[in-house]
């Protein structure tokens, strides 16, 4: 099974960010915690464009932190929002919640 967070990416980030690394992790987690409920609201409102943008943004930042499975799930949401195909998105959001929990645990301990 794929790792929820790629530790090599994290190590590289730690080197680049130096003292700012913990700050970066916290920023990511705070940001994600705000966006996850947004995804549900936008799905409920069938706001395709907003949903697409939120998912797109989360996809980008999670990939930058090495959270590739989470990024991939976000991409699926972005893609379906773009195609206006919202059936099944609810299920993906549940997967995202679970995956984020994993990512969050790993990042907090790193």
């Amino acid at each position, binding site marked *: 099974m794929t790792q929820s967070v790629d530790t090599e990416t994290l190590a590289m980030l730690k080197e680049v*960010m130096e003292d700012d690394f913990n700050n970066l992790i916290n*920023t*990511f987690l705070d940001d994600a915690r705000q966006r996850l409920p947004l995804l549900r609201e936008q799905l409920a409102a069938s706001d395709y464009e907003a949903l697409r*943008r939120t998912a797109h943004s989360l*996809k*980008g*930042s999670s*990939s*930058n932190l090495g959270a590739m499975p989470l990024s991939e799930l976000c991409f699926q949401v972005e893609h379906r929002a773009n195609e206006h195909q919202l059936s099944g998105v609810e299920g993906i959001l549940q997967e995202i919640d679970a995956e984020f929990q994993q990512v969050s645990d790993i990042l907090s301990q790193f």
Partner: protein
Amino acid sequence: MSQQAKPLKILIADDTETDRRILEAIVRREGHEVISVCDGQEAVTAYEREQPDIVLLDALMPRLDGFGAARQIKELAGEELVPIIFLTSLSDTESLVRCLEAGGDDFLSKPYNRVILQAKIKAFNRMREMHQEVQIQRDQIASHNDHLMQEQTVAKQVFDNIAHTGCLDASNVKYLLSPLAVFNGDVIVAAIRPSGSMMVLLGDFTGHGLPAAIGAMPLASSFYGMVQKGFSMVDILREVNQKLKQILPIGVFCCASIVDMNFSKGKIRIWNGGLPDCYLHRSGTGEVEPIRSTHLPLGVLDDSSFKDDCLHFEMEVGDRLYMWSDGIIETRNPKGEMYGEERLQQVFAGNKVPGQVFDDIVNSVHEFAGGERDDDLSLIELTMAEPGQIDGGPRDYSPQRHSGMMEWSMDLELQPSTFRLFDPLPLLLNILVEVPGLRTHSGSLYTILAELYSNALEHGVLGLSSELKHTPEGFAEYYQQRQQRLDTLEEGTVAFSMDHRVLGDGGELILKVTDSGTGFDHQNNIDNPHKRVGYSGRGIPLIRTLCHSLRYIGTGNQVEVVFRWDGDD
């Protein structure tokens, strides 16, 4: 900081804080200065304020997205190259195309890869520096070019002042010369001699640009100076040749044709050194006689090897002479073929109205060239006219009439070695025009001197018979004999005696020419009004129209001409 010598200013625009902070950290670690903003609108404002070297733009941002920001920034940058790199996790082709269309130069996809970003920044910085270099060089080239054009304009003005003081605007002259011909090395100069004949030189210097132009200046100034003073064509040719030989580097020379068109005799004398055949077009029959180059160009041989023998042709009024540089024959059409001499001959063959040949040639060449203007065409048409029809342009009138030589006399005796080598006419004319009142009559005086001198030398000293000149063959024979006798002449003299006195408001010149010959029966020929016209070849009737009186003295080896001028002339 790695090898980057000079830190760059890099603008980052991304609305996702995590991504933005990672990017800032990577760029800063490379030693660059970072300006960080959260949307496209802020990016444009920051660009204007900070003038960054490279811009990193997220595609999707609130307020103004990356596409809009890129467009505005590229517009603000103008000629400056500001590389824009789109930060994107967009992966569909359509979105990438939008980035490029908005002015993006490259992409950086998420997750960010530090090594790739470094490489891109370096590559774009090199490109930016190269662009700046190219712009600096472009501006330098533009400024050098401006400078060069300005110099050429000044040089052309100087050249025009020297070269175009002549009579190119006379009614029997049509010519075509590129506006920048001086820098193509082509030159046309034309002037009326004191005798009233017209001297024209068409020259084509080897090469282009300044080296070709330089030789045209001394050529034109020698030409005009000498024509005005009455020097003969041969003297002018030799002088120009010698001068060019002296000043031009090896390999630079001047192909030229020079012609002396005598309207009163209906004759031309022509010398062609290296130019394409000149054409003599007979208006009556439509026939064309080519006049081949039989000499090397000017500026090649030194004076002792230089050949100055000329060809003589008779021309009826309306007959036309064409001279051109090789530009016409070498004009190429879009397929690269040359216009060539055959096409030129066809223009003449197809011509019905002689007055249109010139335009026909020009049109034919332009048509052949496919409508493109070819600036290398130099062409001149000279039409034989009645004497007196040609306006020689402004003459040199002296404002101070009585300040020069007024009362004087002089004697000059020429001996055989001088006849062979020296033309005394310019010298004598130069002395005569020291009398301001005579200056305006230099044309008439030249004619009188020239006729009397050639009579004294050819008929008196050399004993040639003017009968010979009745037929064209005899004419050639005459000049052959003249040369032969001159070469072997051992004794004989021609003496000029000039005496000038003030007379009323003007003056009187008494000119005596005495030769060592036996004279002739002037009483039964020249002095007899019934036979005056018939005694050909001596130009006496012409002289009589130009002076106050003419009389032969003694056995006829002495002639006296009285020339009067009025201060009111």
